[in-house]
């Protein structure tokens, strides 16, 4: 899986609610049928946080736990929306080219 794909899948999963690393990967497995490798997952989390698209979540609990549970930011939601709309456009065009009607 390409790193940008990994970032999009992580954002999609976090759009449902805050999660920590292991829970993110479990949700990705439920969504795509396979887990991300540790390098892909934590690389994606690091890059998304650096871009301000996700942030540490939680007001309660100790600092370490807050640091590990991540949530999507408003910028992350906006970015994910743009990316998914572009992907949907490509999907529709591809299915039309193949002679299949999009669901």
């Amino acid at each position: 899986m390409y790193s940008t794909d990994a970032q999009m899948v992580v954002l999609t999963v976090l759009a449902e609610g805050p999660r920590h690393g292991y829970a993110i990967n479990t949700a990705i497995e439920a969504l795509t049928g396979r887990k991300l490798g540790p390098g892909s997952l934590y690389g994606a989390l690091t890059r998304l946080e650096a871009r301000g698209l996700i942030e540490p979540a939680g007001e309660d609990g100790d600092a370490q736990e807050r640091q590990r549970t991540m949530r999507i930011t408003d910028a992350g939601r906006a970015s994910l929306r743009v990316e998914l709309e572009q992907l949907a456009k490509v999907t529709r065009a591809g299915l039309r080219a193949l002679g299949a009607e999009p669901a």
Partner: protein
Amino acid sequence: MSAAGLIVALYPPAVRERWGAEIGREVAEAGPRSWPDAVAGAIRLWLRPGDWPETSAGQTRRVVAVALFGVTAAAMLLLRAAEPAPQPLAVPLWLPPLAAGVLLAAPLPPMRWRALRVVCAETVRTMAAPGVAVAAIFALAYSDATGVAVFAFYWATLAFAALRACTLVARCLRICVAPTTRRLRAALLLVGAGLLAGAYQTAAATAVAVTVALALLAALALRAGHNLVSPRPDRP
């Protein structure tokens, strides 16, 4: 140390502090099939210092500076292996950019007597042992001693001195002023250019393995230098 621990140790310090426990747990659970992805993830993150979380002020600059000295030290050992007897008075193509890069990335000593004394003490403490080893090499050279043991001792001493020089930079960065991001970027690009020149020159000397290693180090330095200031795209 377990395989998971070793793989976690490959990650940049800031990423290790933030995600090290989770990465280690996932690598241990998934087993050897997760190792290539975990190692590739560590390499990708070293190439993108602009993405590292900062767990303390200036951490990225300090780590990049030490990594740059580490890359330079490794390159010097490779160049020594490829060109055991350099021509006297001939300045190799790779030397000026490499030296300029190292100077730019060097920690700036504080202009206070107390701090300067601490830096001097650290230098003596860190470099005393490699200094003794280098003196022993000279003594061996003048004694006309030869053999595998002397050869092994020579290379072990060079590697030890390189390691201690990097340790000295890391220790000085706690006391001295760390280079700015702009200086580090310029330093990485200069070192990358120097390593490319070195790869070119060793290719002419038919040292293929050294050429490939130098070219990889050059790519690492140039990529990291570019990422250190490149604007971050806002798409996922």
